[in-house]
């Protein structure tokens, strides 16, 4: 056989059977992997469809007024999402307000300041913070952070900043503020590691040019790094926001299941996601379940909007940079 092959090494066509096998194999693997990719897209569609299908009885019964109504009355089947939307917005925005400057500062430290040897170590420690399961963070939130907030932090804030509505009211161990802090801890590692990568991507010539012109390091950061990475950083913040809006477990554990719309961060409250996690066994009537899933549908729409916007910004940003260089 080897003699036959060596006689005409280059022009000898492959044996017919192998050629067919290869063509079939190529087609099969292409088809199989393509089917898996299509399945992911179908899955995404199915999730949206199923959520709206389950919520449909509540959507038809309450209509859009559901979104603007307050209260969750399981006795008279009167449901509204406004309290929960308020809770979600207040906790998420407050968490972002703390997390954004922190994340940018951490990103700057890791990309510009940290000693070379310690850089990767500290960066991976910060990322490990994201690996802590939310339920463990929630446990710590109830039993350690909550009492500290209720007995030390809130009285202090109330004494010194009590004139701001956010810090009015009487301190409690569970409530919005604990949820805000827990959410901040969850967002910071995500946004700061994205920020770090963005800052590392700034061309060195630009940075050194600024320094050579006599700018201090901070002026270089303000004049070069931050403007250069502005859209990327805003996408990172949006991704963090999406995470905060969707977190159910840790928030349920610490927020204390309150109701009503208050400016104070000290009172107990609820978010869309935490309401869902609380009621998982409590829902009895069909309309009650449908109303709960209506909340999920609102949450889904918010998170899709936020994530798609962030991904869109990221894509445009990377295209701009690639096109520009």
């Amino acid at each position, binding site marked *: 056989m080897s003699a036959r092959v060596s006689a005409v090494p280059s022009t000898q066509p492959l044996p017919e059977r192998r050629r067919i096998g*290869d063509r079939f*194999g*190529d087609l099969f*693997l*292409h088809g199989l*992997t*393509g*089917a*898996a*990719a299509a*399945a*992911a*897209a179908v899955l995404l569609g199915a*999730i949206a469809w*199923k*959520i709206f*299908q*389950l919520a449909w009885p509540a959507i038809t019964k309450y209509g859009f007024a559901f979104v603007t109504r307050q209260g969750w009355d399981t006795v008279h089947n009167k449901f509204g999402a406004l309290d929960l939307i308020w809770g979600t917005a207040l906790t998420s925005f407050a968490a972002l307000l703390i997390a954004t400057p*922190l994340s940018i*500062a*951490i990103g*700057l*430290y890791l990309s510009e300041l*940290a000693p070379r040897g310690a850089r*990767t170590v*500290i960066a*991976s*420690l*910060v990322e*490990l*913070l994201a*690996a*802590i*399961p939310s*339920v*463990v963070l*929630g*446990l*710590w939130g109830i*039993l350690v952070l909550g009492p500290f907030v209720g007995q030390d932090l809130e009285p202090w804030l109330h004494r010194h900043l009590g004139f701001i509505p956010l810090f009015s009211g009487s301190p409690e161990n569970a409530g919005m503020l604990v949820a805000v802090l827990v959410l901040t801890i969850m967002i910071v590692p995500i946004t*700061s590691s994205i920020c770090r990568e963005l800052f590392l991507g700034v061309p060195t010539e630009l940075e050194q040019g600024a320094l050579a012109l006599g700018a*201090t390091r*901070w*002026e270089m950061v303000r004049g070069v790094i931050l403007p250069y990475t502005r859209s990327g950083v805003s996408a990172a913040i949006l*991704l963090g926001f999406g*995470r905060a*809006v969707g977190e*159910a477990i840790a928030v349920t*554990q610490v927020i204390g299941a309150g109701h009503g719309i208050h400016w104070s961060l000290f009172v107990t409250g609820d978010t869309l996601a935490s309401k*869902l*996690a609380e009621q*998982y*066994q409590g829902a009895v009537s069909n309309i009650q379940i449908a109303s709960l899933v209506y909340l*999920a549908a609102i*949450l*889904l729409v918010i*998170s899709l909007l936020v*994530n798609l916007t*962030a*991904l869109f910004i990221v894509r445009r940003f990377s295209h701009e940079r690639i096109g520009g260089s």
Partner: protein
Amino acid sequence: MAVDAGRYSLTLSRRTRRRKGVNVLMQALATLAALAAVAVLALVIISVARRGASALSWDFFTKNAATFGQSGGGVANALVGSLVIVGLATAMAVPVGILIALYVSEFAPPRVGDLVRLVLDVLNGLPSIIIGIFVYGLLVIGSGQAAWKGSFALAIIMLPLVARATQEVLALVPSTLREGALALGASRWRTVLGVVLPTSFGGIITGTVLAVARAAGETAPLLFTTSIAANAVTWDPRQPVLSIPYDIFVLSESPDPADHARAWALGFVLICFVLVTSLSARLLLVRYRKRLEG
């Protein structure tokens, strides 16, 4: 305007001093922020370890929870439950995730590949409780809870993680390897299965381990899919089972301090597992990438 002496003096002008001061201040603040993040990590780990480690014992791992009304007991059922749920979820998510990554990096036209990546990113960004409700509506309504339904929910969470990690590693495989195989006359599918996939094996494993670490700590998808369970060890995925994160969730909301002690102990077990797996996976990934990038 007087000839400014300051212009030629060697001492710093007030303006320069201020600029330098601001610079130092900002550097200090950035350092402080990083320190704060590390401190919070240490604080959480230490408080979980201090409260949880003491409750660990042989009985804790091998006995079931005490019957209703009594406190104490072990967590064998939750431990086995988590093992079953996460094991099955891995078995569901990993093959599909690898296939999707292969499609994106080896077969898809650039536009379609972009679209698939977008779908994966959107899936990754969905709140996990929504995925729980989806599986509840798809599988649980009408036929009840089961461990494999929880696994399905976790698999949806793992899928984008595995696919994205694999796809990133596949992108690192040098194109010379692919071209070499093709030039030798190997067909496309033999090149992919015989050259590309084995080269990226290490990266796929670490990606999978990271996804497992994430799934092992997820509670929200299990609330609706496998939470109402008998207090006994069962390996049968058709039965609903308890799991470690769900147990922590329930125990943490209980007013009984004995329950809190068990929650801390479980939290310690979970945090150890998650930190050890994700740390070692990260280290392996760094080494693996270095080797691949040469």
